[in-house]
């Protein structure tokens, strides 16, 4: 056909796009709102990023540096801004770290898109080009990455500390980073290395002490007191532990019942029967040799009564009560035992064994520690300490990020340099690639490349360095082939960032780029906001 040939010549011209006023307004509003969100978290990027204080609706105060947390608490209303919040959440689920980075990249991309739109490029053309650029970017990143072995503990610790360095608790990174690595490695199942469930790592927060006192416990920790209402034990060696899901209290039926008492002697008899009933149960328990009981919380009736506690204490059985049902799985997995739901099923083979169960005073409160568990399952418990609630919460969040980083590395065993090095390298390579592309695509890819420079720029800015000088020097170094040159925030200059041990998992960088692009493309394609029921 002759017609297409003719049109090829003019195709670049016809890719232009004339929006009507309303659509332009909607798009403008969306982009502005989304960028406002991005700007809000921008200053918290990097090791010298600042923290935000958030006062929630309930009057609670949160101090954090974690992008996902900040955005989550912001309570934005504008639909496009909400999408950015979602974006940071999905980065949190995929990679766990880089939640600020992803939003900052999205903001920078939107800024570039606005320029492209105003020069009359059709949004779908921009969107397609962005997609192409992001695919290419992932290729470039993969090419830059350094493979890492799980046995190489040092590298893992390095990347965990990179993640921790940008948090409030950065001064403790030497302590927390190895801890995170050990915790993850202890739950990895060698048979299925790609399945790491972070729910197998339990973080117990306890106020008091400093973050320095944070430790990983080989065993179980309950943030509870041992029930010693009537002089019960607080320490038990060579423990035989049973997890029970029934209650040691007077019987209660599901059907409504009432006991009719007609005379005084009957009352006495009922009291006696109650005692005998409980005693009978405890005898059965004692007969199996069990000496530690973990009792599940019950909403239907009291799990234990004062009376039963008294008898249990007499029988020298240590009791931890009010264990949540959700925790049962974790506990049984750790102790390598089975939950017992009926006194009739109380058998020895269902119990777990540990060297020591003891109540430990920690700061103001007390916790129960179970250590030396025989045949311990693949779980880990981390006891986090902090001098106040704010620090404690932030330590928890930071530790979670560090755990995620390690998990990423277990899933995808590649490391990449940090400190803005990958971004500037991407920017350089994509910029070069844009020059060989034709038409609008090349134009859009170049904008994409420029947008990526926002990361080193912001890093430098947040560190109080001159962003322009730093970024231009960085560009210069990369142009000379030093692909691992990045910003060394501590020294305030450009160095080989791999040598400085600033590394992060490849998955964090790639998913930040792909997710941010996906989100921006979605925002671009919207031309109307319709209010519905």
């Amino acid at each position, binding site marked *: 056909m002759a017609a297409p040939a003719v*049109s090829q010549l003019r195709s670049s011209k016809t890719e232009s796009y004339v929006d009507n006023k309303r659509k332009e307004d909607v798009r403008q509003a969306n982009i502005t709102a989304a960028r406002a969100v991005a700007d809000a978290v921008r200053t918290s990027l990097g090791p010298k990023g600042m923290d935000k204080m958030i006062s929630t609706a309930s009057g609670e105060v949160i101090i954090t540096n974690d992008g996902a947390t900040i955005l989550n608490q912001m309570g934005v209303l504008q639909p496009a801004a909400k999408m950015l919040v979602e974006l940071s959440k999905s980065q949190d689920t995929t990679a766990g770290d880089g939640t600020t980075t992803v939003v900052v990249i999205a903001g920078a991309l939107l800024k570039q898109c606005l320029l492209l739109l105003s020069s009359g490029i059709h949004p779908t053309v921009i969107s397609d080009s962005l997609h192409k650029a992001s695919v290419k970017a992932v290729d470039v990143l993969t090419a830059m990455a350094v493979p890492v072995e799980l046995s190489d503990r040092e590298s893992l610790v390095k990347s965990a500390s990179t993640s921790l360095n940008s948090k409030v608790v950065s001064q403790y990174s030497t302590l927390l980073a190895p801890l995170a690595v050990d915790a993850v490695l202890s739950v990895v199942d060698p048979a299925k290395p790609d399945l790491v469930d972070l729910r197998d790592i339990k973080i117990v927060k306890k106020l008091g002490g400093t973050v320095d006192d944070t430790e990983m416990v080989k065993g179980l920790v309950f943030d509870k007191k041992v029930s010693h209402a009537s002089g019960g034990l607080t320490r038990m060696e060579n423990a035989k532990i049973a997890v029970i899901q029934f209650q040691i209290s*007077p*019987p209660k039926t599901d*059907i409504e019942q009432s006991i009719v008492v007609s005379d005084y002697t009957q009352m006495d008899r009922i009291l006696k*029967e109650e005692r005998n009933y409980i005693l009978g149960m405890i005898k059965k328990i004692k007969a199996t040799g069990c000496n530690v009981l973990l009792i599940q919380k019950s909403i239907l009736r009291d799990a234990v009564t004062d009376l039963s506690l008294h008898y249990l204490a007499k029988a020298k059985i240590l009791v931890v009560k009010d264990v949540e049902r959700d925790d049962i799985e974790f506990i049984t997995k750790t102790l390598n035992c089975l939950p017992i739901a009926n006194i009739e099923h109380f058998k020895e083979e269902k119990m777990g064994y540990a060297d020591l169960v003891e109540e430990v005073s920690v700061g103001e409160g007390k916790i129960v520690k179970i250590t030396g568990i025989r045949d311990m399952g693949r779980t880990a418990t981390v006891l986090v300490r902090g001098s106040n609630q704010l620090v404690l919460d932030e330590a928890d969040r930071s530790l979670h990020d560090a755990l995620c980083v390690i998990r990423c590395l277990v899933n995808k065993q590649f490391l990449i340099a940090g400190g803005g090095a990958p971004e500037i390298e991407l920017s350089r390579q994509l910029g070069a690639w844009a020059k060989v592309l034709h038409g609008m695509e090349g134009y859009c890819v170049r904008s994409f490349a420029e947008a990526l420079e926002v990361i080193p720029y912001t890093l430098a800015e947040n560190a109080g360095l001159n962003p322009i000088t730093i970024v231009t020097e960085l560009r210069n170094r990369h142009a000379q082939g030093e692909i691992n040159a990045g910003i060394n925030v501590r020294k305030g200059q450009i160095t080989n960032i791999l040598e400085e041990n600033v590394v992060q998992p490849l998955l964090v960088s790639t998913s930040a780029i792909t997710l941010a692009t996906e989100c921006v493309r979605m925002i671009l394609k919207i031309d109307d906001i319709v209010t519905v029921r």
Partner: protein
Amino acid sequence: MNLDLAKPDPLPSYIYVLSDFLRGQQLFSHLFSSRVSALSFRSTPLRFYLFLVKAELIGWQHIDFGFEWRCTSISHFGMAIERILKDDASEEKGERARMASFVGAMAIADLVKTTLGPKGMDKILQSTGRGQTVTVTNDGATILKSLHIDNPAAKVLVELDISKVQDDEVGDGTTSVVVLAGELLREAEKLVASKIHPMTIIAGFRMAAECAREALLKKVVDNKANEEKFKTDLMKIAKTTLSSKILSQDKEHFAKLAVDAVLRLKGSTNLESIQIIKKPGGSLKDSFLDEGFILDKKIGIGQPKRIENANILVANTAMDTDKVKIYGARVRVDSMAKVADIEAAEKQKMREKVDKILAHGINCFVNRQLIYNFPEELFANAGVLAIEHADFDGIERLALVTGGEIASTFDNPESVKLGHCKLIEEIMIGEDKLIKFSGVEMGQACTVVLRGASHHVLDEAERSLHDALCVLSQTVNDSRVLFGGGWPEMVMAKAVDELARTTPGKRSHAIEAFSRALVAIPTTIADNAGLDSAELVARLRAEHNKEDSNAGIDVISGSVGDMSELGISEAFKVKQAVLLSATEAAEMILRVDEIITCAPRRREDRM
């Protein structure tokens, strides 16, 4: 009551006068001071609500008399209304009613118009309800479904027939229907303005639609016989459908996924057995098709995590306690021991129930309701995998795909149909653990796991995939295929044009108009892509004047291209449904000559 306000001439503007008589007078005098002062308003204490006064301002300067006549009629009108309809009820007649319908329907069409075609835009749907949830979509059906609509004609377009039918039966083409119906009405409006009777227009439209359908039928390609070719056809259709959606970038991947899923169905259109699970995280490319069924639940504690050759009992029964359901039932006892006895009896009952269930010879038990700790342990002791709280949808599907039946009593093991599957195991997607049933009895069953950046992306991906699956499953049954990219519309338009030329009488105007409306679809596609639609459509028309042209709009390169080379195909069934339902909807709205709005029901408590 025989009032003929609409008769004189088509008038360009409406003035709503919302008032009682006196305020009306003020407004009149405000608008047309000099004229109105000359009029004598009879001082009858009439109240009249909501007037729709058509006013041709220029006309009035010449015919004062006419205006006076109208005002008199109005007062009569008001009096009559008061007798017939309730206070808040209103009535629109003749020309006005038709106008209102046209305007409403066209507004709806214009709203969804921009989502048409591969370069169509998305809309944000912001809910005003609680939570202010946000949906981002390109799917016409979703947009239309969630709109607040007051205009009755627009409602016709949205609710009664078309887009819902289109979405449920054919799955795709909802936007096209609405756009085509809107264009037909736009054309009809012009014809009515030039004093052609609506019935004549309808007759013409019908002839045209029939002729267009014939034209399409002549051009269809049916590759049913050749399996290889048929599969490529399906791929093409899937890609074409997906290219206008969010999945466009990964359309190869998803088209393959959708085709595989549909081919597993082996001709049935029951999409129930294709389950779609959405898990945030990862990117769209990580989505995959898995044979079998995936249930988003947890396995009970201490139970086997992997079972081969499973016999599955799907049940909906209370596994907490079998309560006596008689209101106020209670037992009276006189000692503690008896309470303990009752408790033991209850336990015993539950144990018996579990024993009965186990007597079915199962090794997997799925319940819709909760399974309490006690029965859970009993199951664990028996080495049976028990899954609690599988939601309604979950167990129904599970029963369907494993070939079992949902049981709620367990007295007769032989009468209960058990489900079977080769393997049950725990898998991990993203951060969550799920249970996978593979090798299920119903071989058609499969699960599509969608991954994506956020819930918005996932929801939209699900909608797009659903559309593609619908179209494909329809195509498997009716394998006639057409080209896409505006090609069918041009073919139809050409045939309809010819018909117009050979048809005598006023109808031919309507037929011609029909053809113009058809061309509006490629025009919209081109407009949405930011192309010069006038130029492109003209070139397309010229191409189609040749015999057997495959020309359509190639949005990617922005020109006219060969649709068979580009591999853009559509299902005949979709096109036919678009054509017929759009025509019918337009016809229905054209026939309207009176709209009666009923008085809203008053709430008693407001008094």
